[in-house]
């Protein structure tokens, strides 16, 4: 996988994950191109596009477009499943996830993504395991914060 982008129907970026090193200026250009291309697609067309030498797989969930760029070798149908799995993970975590959740808790969206994909590949194929790991990391964060607060209180 080369990159994953989430953007709204108005073209505002909500999440970007780059799996190959890309200069900042090129990232901006790619985001512009992807947004324009995907938003221009008519409703009843297939979810696959060609862009440069990459295949782009996109799907709309509520008000967000999920857009994944894959190599020629990779399986487009599986890419759709990957997008779907990520949405399911977000939904489980936030409970009926919506765009606002991802806007106001973008770090969480990234943390969840990082438990599902690493280096452009799927790292865990079990939904439950990913959910459990996120929960555990969150617990660790809570404990940490509690410890910090308690040390500050003691001073």
């Amino acid at each position, binding site marked *: 996988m080369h990159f994953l982008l989430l953007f709204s129907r108005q073209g505002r*970026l*909500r*999440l*970007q994950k*780059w*799996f190959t*090193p*890309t*200069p900042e200026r090129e990232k*901006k250009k790619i985001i512009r191109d992807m947004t324009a291309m995907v938003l221009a697609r008519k409703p*009843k*067309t*297939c*979810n*696959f*596009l060609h862009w440069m030498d990459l295949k782009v797989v996109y799907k709309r969930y509520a008000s967000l477009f999920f857009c994944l760029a894959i190599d020629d*070798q990779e*399986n*487009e*149908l*599986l890419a*759709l*499943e*990957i997008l*779907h799995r990520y949405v399911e993970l977000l939904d489980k*975590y*936030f*409970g009926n996830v919506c765009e606002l959740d991802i*806007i*106001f*808790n*973008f*770090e*969480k969206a*990234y*943390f969840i993504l*990082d438990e599902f994909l*690493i*280096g452009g*590949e*799927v*790292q*865990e*194929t*079990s*939904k*439950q*395991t990913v959910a459990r*790991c996120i929960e*555990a*990391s*969150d617990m*660790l*964060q*809570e404990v*940490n*914060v509690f410890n*910090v607060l308690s040390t*500050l209180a003691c001073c």
Partner: protein
Amino acid sequence: MPFGSRKCQGMIRVIRSARTQGEERGVIQRECAAIRAQFRQADNGGRSHNLAKLLYVHMLGYPAHFGQMECVRLIASPRYNEKRVGYLGAMMLLDENQDASLLITNSIKNDLAHSSQYVQSLALCTLACMGSAEMCRDLAPEIDRLLRASSSYIKKKATLCAVHIVRKVPELGELFTPAARALLAEKNHGVLHGAVILITELCERNAQTLVQFREAVPELVHIMRGLVTSGYSPEHTVAGISDPFLQVRILRLLRILGRNNDTASDAMNDLLAQVATNTDSSKTAGSAVLYETVLTVMDIKSESGLRVLAVNILGRFLLNNDRNIRYISMTSLQKIVSTDHNAVQRHRGTIVDCLKDQDASVKRRALELSLALVSAINIRSMMKELLLFLSTCPPELKSHAASGIFNAAERYSPSQRWHIDTILHVLITAGADVRDETVPNLIQLITNASQLHCYTVHKLYRALVADISQQPLVQVACWCIGEYGDSLLQGDCEETEPIQVTEDDILDALETVLQSHMSSPATRGFALTATMKLSTREQGTINLIRKSYHLSIYGSCMDVELQQRAVEYNALFKKYDHMRAAVLEKMPVMDRSSMGQTNGESGGGGVQELEPTKPKQPEMMVAPQPASQVGGGEGGGGHGF
């Protein structure tokens, strides 16, 4: 459920309430100034919030490079929440091209050995995301250690980290090969999945490693069989398929191992047949697995029975309600149409039906495939469908469809008349979208079909009278009328309905072309020359006068090319009238090879020299004529006069 930091959310709210772009910029400038100030201060317990704010601002597209050092500092913090945001910042703001990225190498190294697996996980994730070649070299031994002895949670991440390292520094593949082999024995799906990916990378980069891993084919087949036959598992089943992610990756690895190797291919044959037959493709997950199976079967040395099974799966996909599946079916069929032509031909009917699909991408694929499937046997029926498609297809596909039709017609036309009819049909339907060389090619074709001159000129005359907007059609029609106008005047033609045409009718038609604003200068050139030629084909003197009237108008035309012609033709009427008949003789049959490229030097057979020449001079057509000669060299565009 602990969500994001309140402070960061507060800032996000403020930014979102800005009503204009300018207001937003103002808010962000203020916030960034505050963040910068905070970064300079000592530890105040809010560092992670500030970096989070900066990362949000970065996502909106504003510069955030001043946060890079803060990422480095936070990563080195002992607190988990600060590390977490620090590593996230590193992945977003630092890539291997930034100098600051090297500074975190030491932190990563320490964190890889941390007592908490969640901290180890952060380090692994970041290394796999943005590790430079240097960092990879530095940390590879650590990764190898983690591959061998750690929890499943860490092993699966370490494996993908190794994948990244191998992509960055292929020579390090050797280091990971032994561990990769051992990982195939793992039961944990996450680890197994990562192991399969790692082995795939290693085999793709090193031929010896590939040979080595061929021995693992039976093991992979065994794992795959287990997945296919296993029942429901709440952890891994997706729409009735057991871990489709893992299945697809194993199939992809098998493809690489079985390629060009009979033994390996044999060993996986039965398994592939089993997967192909037993996988339920009613949902995307199953279709993804079937799709990968088909790709593997077609790429390895599989038995013919298995190949037919695979192509039939693709054929079934063509009938699927899901347009995604129809689309990938066609891309796959396109890949194999040259190697397994007969198998794909069996599905020709369905493919041709897809020309009528609503989806533009599907239509495009169907067009490509249909053109690839045209053969001498099916040319007539295929052409009917293709011409029908041409009249209704979206504009962006018209040009491609037209060229495809021409190529097919050229290779397989059952008769010359059919060929000419087909080309005329395309010019009438999609004349604006055909390529430039169509006109000289068609003219050449027509001259070669001497028994059809009468038929052709009748058809073209009718088409011209009906519609003069399609330039290529008009050009060819003018040329034919100029050459074969006498056949037109004779009235009857055995292959088409008789039509009464007088000299005046013809001149009217040409005049309409000359005067129409739709005609391009090139087209007007054709019409002018045709008018000239008719002076030798017909006998009436009154019309000669009309023709000189046309020519004198064009003698002062703005277009240099037309002006030049008009002046020369006028000269032919006046000063060189005795040569006119010889100069405007009928063209000899053009030989494809002597026509040369599509440039003007190939045109102008008779008009280029004013001294009487030998009648058959095909080689004169390619001889470059200097522009200063009175005959004049023609400009570009290949007008075959």
